[in-house]
């Protein structure tokens, strides 16, 4: 029972990534695309932990931590670049 609920939750999160990807393609300005990229990485962190649950490998949680760190640094660097402060 609970496994099915977990899988439905993962499918809904995957659909959310698809919506954010549509915004990333359509986005009128470059800042819109960076916002969509930020949202996609945050949903991806959830999905990596979900993958660790499905495949029963708790080492993937470490990968999610490092992925979050690198995406944060990347988004801040792109924001500084858009502001012409870099």
């Amino acid at each position, binding site marked *: *029972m609970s496994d099915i609920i977990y899988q439905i939750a993962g499918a809904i999160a995957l659909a*959310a990534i698809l919506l954010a990807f549509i*915004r990333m393609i359509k986005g009128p*300005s470059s800042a819109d695309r960076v916002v969509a990229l930020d949202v996609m990485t*945050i949903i991806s962190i959830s999905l990596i932990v979900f993958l660790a649950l499905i495949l029963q490998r708790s080492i993937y949680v470490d990968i999610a*931590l490092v992925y979050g760190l690198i995406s*944060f640094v990347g988004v801040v660097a792109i924001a500084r670049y858009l502001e012409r402060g870099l």
Partner: protein
Amino acid sequence: MELAGAIITLIGSVFLFLGALGLLRMPDIFNRMQAGTKATTMGTILFLTGIAIGHFESMGAGKIVILILFIIFTNPLSSHALARAAHHIGIPLAKKTVKNDLAEDEKKEEGGQL
């Protein structure tokens, strides 16, 4: 306990989906940013909490708690940096906007200096 974790994870994934839907449908970059940041932060917290309390032994709940704290601290920071950049490069607001206090203050400051 596992069923409770699964239900919390489902609620979190609904938050994630609504955040992404708001990102797609909002008219303006600042509206998109507030939909895409706050709802996604809440959704990620609920998603990870559900997994951590559903499978307490096999998943290593301490690392997931560290991940949740990390997301709480860094997500508003990156959103703030992006909003600041979007304001400074002059991306226009939506047509329905009725008040822009920051632009008025900046105009007033420039007038005072001249």
